[in-house]
């Protein structure tokens, strides 16, 4: 088995990407887009003033030069139809040699059409049904938002991106260069022009959607199963079983979720290899110095201990913390609405959006505020309808809601009551009639370059009463640059998007994998050496880690029918042994070798003569045996020329002549009489053990 980490990703929006070599198959895990990178582009200007400003700039590059060594201004951003940044290292792999693609969450789908539009692509793609649906909607939304750019800049003729031309100039700010060219300066090839709706369609046609915990078998060899990771609706961890053992891929996981089905870690117990691919701890600054508080000091019986450990993973502390964060966002929105300001929420994570929608509608209803909630997205209606039809991917409380006849998410009722308004786009005809400020708007995209959020931000940025709710990490980069100066309040939220590092040791002692593959960057943050039961291997970005096999030999199942036909040979000196020749067809089914009766049924294998012998032939015994068959012979001792070789010869005289040469190594029958030769062979076979 070999693992190559192609990218360690960056937060929820950009999950890690790996290539796994297993049983001779190449498996790509996730195919994301680095959506934060599009912040280098300038958003479509919404008013004439701004557009004039930018076009003026484009005509007059000299003006730019004078701005050396200064703060970046909106004018530094690239004014062109955006391209999208994919995983760089993925382009180094021959697409046609990928056998399987596993997707672990909707964000991991976004780059997939880039791969499937390659004519050589022939891999089988597996993802959960919910991921397929949500992923497709997100891609469609991305394309529809991108259309605005295409409409503004017009069709681009050449396949060479014009915007790249001037970026290596000296006066281009370093920050921008870093995003475009990467740290090592070779990222240019990872920029791609966005796919079309047709590309998405043909990509999704190649997807095999799996149900919750459904076992799917690839090529008879690998049996794969998706178990919930708790990160978001449809997000999963993968369990792969093959003839050479079992492997689990643990992506960003959340133990107790209030929207998606929680991390199903019980299903991942006792695997041979566990790939820990939760990089979420890199997002937070928390350091775990005393991380390994050796959980195995408990004196209880092992089973009890296991339960306790599992329970400690499920403590509600962090989930309560998440609820508090959500409540805080709601209260901030209410506050600004109270003061007459509007709120713009640009969060991507569907689970969070759904919970916020529910919470806000509820809190608005209980207060006297009459503030409408708008959800503006081309796919909002379908997405919101869909989330109420997938009980298997929702958390327990929401499942129970559905079972008692209520919708799993509360937004349905509010939509009906016209408290939440859904619009496909900001220019939807009905939007203007129901528009009312202050209001609360959920609108993509979190990069603040695409979609309705751009116009709304431009509208409200000067209003100190208004509030912008952002995902963490955006404000530090180029994100807010085009909208500066901003008078608006800004709330940055970072929601839990993975396993807390201090829980990792406990998780490992509950799951008891024989080997754990941990990213080196994670390993640096936590001391895992005290966990004795596991052998820990470290992997790093763009390096291939070879993992030696654990199980020595794979199992083969022999069909009873075939086994009953075997003819057993007893061995002379060994009572405990039985051996039999085995002939059949070796099949691979459901990850198991199986030996069945072959097509050409061998004539009863008992009759076939042994082909392999061991032991030694004493010439005297052989002469006796031959005599019983009516063959006479005499022994001639011949010491080899150098005296060391103990070669003995039997001269056969009757019924026809022949020679038998025997030594420790073997016996040779020398005669031109076929019958005599066969008889002699039988005699030898009677003396030796063979098969």
């Amino acid at each position: 088995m070999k693992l190559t980490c192609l990218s360690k990703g960056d937060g929820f929006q950009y999950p890690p990407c790996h290539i796994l070599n297993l049983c001779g198959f190449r498996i790509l895990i996730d195919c994301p887009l680095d959506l934060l990178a599009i912040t280098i582009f300038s958003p479509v200007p919404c008013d004439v003033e701004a557009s004039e400003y930018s076009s003026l700039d484009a005509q007059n590059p000299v003006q730019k030069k004078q701005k050396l060594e200064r703060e970046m201004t909106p004018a530094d951003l690239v004014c062109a139809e955006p391209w999208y940044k994919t995983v760089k290292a993925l382009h180094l792999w021959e697409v046609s040699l990928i056998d399987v693609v596993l997707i672990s969450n909707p964000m991991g789908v976004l780059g997939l059409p880039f791969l499937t539009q390659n004519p050589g692509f022939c891999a089988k793609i597996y993802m959960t049904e919910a991921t397929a649906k949500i992923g497709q909607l997100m891609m469609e939304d991305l394309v529809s938002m991108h259309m605005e750019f295409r409409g503004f800049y017009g069709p681009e003729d050449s396949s060479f991106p014009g915007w790249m031309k001037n970026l290596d100039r000296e006066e281009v700010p370093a920050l921008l260069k870093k995003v475009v060219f990467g740290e090592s300066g070779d990222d240019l090839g990872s920029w791609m022009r966005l796919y079309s709706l047709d590309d998405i369609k043909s990509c999704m046609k190649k997807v095999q959607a799996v149900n919750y915990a459904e076992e799917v078998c690839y090529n008879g060899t690998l049996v794969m199963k998706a178990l919930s990771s708790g990160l978001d609706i449809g997000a999963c961890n993968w369990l792969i079983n093959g003839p050479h053992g079992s492997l689990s891929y643990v992506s960003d996981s959340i133990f107790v979720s209030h929207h998606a089905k929680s991390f199903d870690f019980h299903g991942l117990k006792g695997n041979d290899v566990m790939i820990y691919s939760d990089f979420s701890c890199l997002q937070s600054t928390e350091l775990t110095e005393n991380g390994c508080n050796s959980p195995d000091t408990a004196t209880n019986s092992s089973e009890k201990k296991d339960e306790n450990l599992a329970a400690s993973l499920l403590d509600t502390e962090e989930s309560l913390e998440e609820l508090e964060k959500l409540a805080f966002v709601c209260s901030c929105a209410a506050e600004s609405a109270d003061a007459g300001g509007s709120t713009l929420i640009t969060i991507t994570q569907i689970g969070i959006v759904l919970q916020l929608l529910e919470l806000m509608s509820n809190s608005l209803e209980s207060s006297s505020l009459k503030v409408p909630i708008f959800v503006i997205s081309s796919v909002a209606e379908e997405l919101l309808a869909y989330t109420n039809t997938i009980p298997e991917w929702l958390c327990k409380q929401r499942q129970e809601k559905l079972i008692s006849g209520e919708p799993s998410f509360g937004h349905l009722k509010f939509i009906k009551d016209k408290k939440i308004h859904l619009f496909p786009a900001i220019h939807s005809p009905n939007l203007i009639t129901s528009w009312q400020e202050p209001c609360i708007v959920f609108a993509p995209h979190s990069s603040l370059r695409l979609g309705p959020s751009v116009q709304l931000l431009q509208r409200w940025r000067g209003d100190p009463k208004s509030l912008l709710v952002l995902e963490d990490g955006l404000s530090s980069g180029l994100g807010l640059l085009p909208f500066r100066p901003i008078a608006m309040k800004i709330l940055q939220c970072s929601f839990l998007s993975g396993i807390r590092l201090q829980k990792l040791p406990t998780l490992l002692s509950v799951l008891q994998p024989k080997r754990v593959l941990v990213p080196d960057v994670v390993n640096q943050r936590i001391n895992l050496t005290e966990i004795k039961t596991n052998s820990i291997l470290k992997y790093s970005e763009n390096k291939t880690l070879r993992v030696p096999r654990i199980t020595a030999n794979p199992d083969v199942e022999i069909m009873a029918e075939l086994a009953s036909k075997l003819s057993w040979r007893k061995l002379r000196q060994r009572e405990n042994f039985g051996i039999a020749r085995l002939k059949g067809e070796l099949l691979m089914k459901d990850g198991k070798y199986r030996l069945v009766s072959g097509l050409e049924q061998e004539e009863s294998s008992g009759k076939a003569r042994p082909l392999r012998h061991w032991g030694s032939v004493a010439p005297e015994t052989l002469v006796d045996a031959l005599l019983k068959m009516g063959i006479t012979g005499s022994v001639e001792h011949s010491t080899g020329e150098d005296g060391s070789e103990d070669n003995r010869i039997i001269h056969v005289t009757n019924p026809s002549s022949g020679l038998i040469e025997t030594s420790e190594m073997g016996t040779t029958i020398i005669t031109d009489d076929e019958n005599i030769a066969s008889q002699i062979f039988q005699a030898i076979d009677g003396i030796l053990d063979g098969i």
Partner: protein
Amino acid sequence: MAIDCLILGAGQEIDFSLLSKTGDFDKELSCIIITHFHMDHVGALPYFTEVCGYNGPIYMSYPTKALSPLMLEDYRRVMVDRRGEEELFTTTHIANCMKKVIALDLKQTIQVDQDLQIRGYYAGHVIGAVMVYAKVGDAAIVYTGDYNMTTDRHLGAAKIERLQLDLLISESTYATTIRGSKYPREREFLQAVHKCVAGGGKALIPSFALGRAQELCMLLDDYWERMNIKVPIYFSSGLTIQANMYYKMLISWTSQNVKEKHATHNPFDFKNVKDFDRSLIHAPGPCVLFATPGMLCAGFSLEVFKHWAPSPLNLVALPGYSVAGTVGHKLMSGKPTTVDLYNGTKVDVRCKIHQVAFSPHTDAKGIMDLTKFLSPKNVVLVHGEKPSMMSLKDKITSELNIPCFVPANGETVSFTSTTFIKATASDTFLKSCSSPNFKFSNSTQLHVTDQRTADGVLVVEKNKKSKIVHQDEVSEVLNEKNHEVSLAYCCPVKGKGESEDVDLIKELSEKITETVSGTQIHESGNCLQVGSFKGTLCLKDKCVHRSEISSSEGVFLCCNWSVADLELGWKIINVIKQNL
């Protein structure tokens, strides 16, 4: 083997002591799986868990888990409130019982305990119905529950993958019926209803809350839309309205068609359907009413029937099957002019009666198709009438050549199940299995076959796991030294004249090819090799391998071959001899 306990029949009829004499059901049963929410499949569950005290796991699909409590509560009410029978379980019992249920997704593979693995496949009978696949060790069965092999308007057809099965247990409600296309039947039904309402009559469709009601309603709603009919369609009970809401949320369990439409318009949002109010029974004007329960066995549908039956304008459309003894059954089995209701009152029946042959059960062809598709080692038929089951049994035995059984209640049938012997395989063995074994035959066209046969040696040692090794490895495993047995003969060859060695070898190899078919001969210098047969021109004057009789003059080919190629060796020797 663990038992998949499908609770069949109403609680009273089941004697649970058959399962366990001591009453310790948890020990006897690995789990309970409920295939769908019909009373004859789930009816006794609360009784079993809450009164008998079963405490093990219970599995059912999400829709079944959601809808069973409604059905159970309705059933309990009918039993207690209307018929005055003693209740088997209370509302609290139902609620507590449902809390213990573990919900399943389609195809979700669940390891119940160390041995038992279960999985549900789409059965199509009602929403959430599953066929159950269960595997213990190497033995596997499928229990179909009730299923439907044709696509409905609102549900898909049963869907299962090819599995290796020892046993298929199939329902056989319609063991001899073969249904044609459903479209003519649909048209007939629509025409009957349309004619009735066009004539100002009222159409009563007694049906159960879930299943046929949605199917027919969808059909009517569509037709109303197309024909622009404004006559109201009513649903009698809140249950059906509530049920429709469930259907809306369980959209992933409906037919493909519904799923595709659902994004733009949820087909369970019926445009023309309204709630019925008791006062509307005597309201003038035409209408269509779906009333529960089906079969006109009790309750509201019977009450409405009492009022509407005397008018010749009206229509009663009976979907599906009616149990003997119900009013529905009486109406279908003849053209009665009066019908006795249960409490002794008689009702004049002058309305039209239309039977709608819409059954969510598969027909005989469906059972045959499924059996053929799955090709199990054995078939057991359950759920149906004995004579027709016997005839289907004969058909399965003769046409598909699969042993088939129709056990009576309480009878036990035993089967031998598939077993495998497990052994670890060595790498050399596995590698040898996957190396190609090309065979070329050249009659008129070149045929290339690659029949890979696994050829190994099974080594069994007492108290140890069996091993499969390659034949070269046997001695190593046994800690022995190989002893090679071979044959040798220095054969006289007489070439034409004083030809070169190389030419002689060529000549020989040509001859060998002529007579010994399917061999590949390698020549090199003064050697030729066929398999393990090796012949070298003998340069010695006196070779030990030479037969003493033959003279030492001439050219000799010193041959050596292993016992594996015993026959081949002699064949070649004969060829060379003939050439002398």
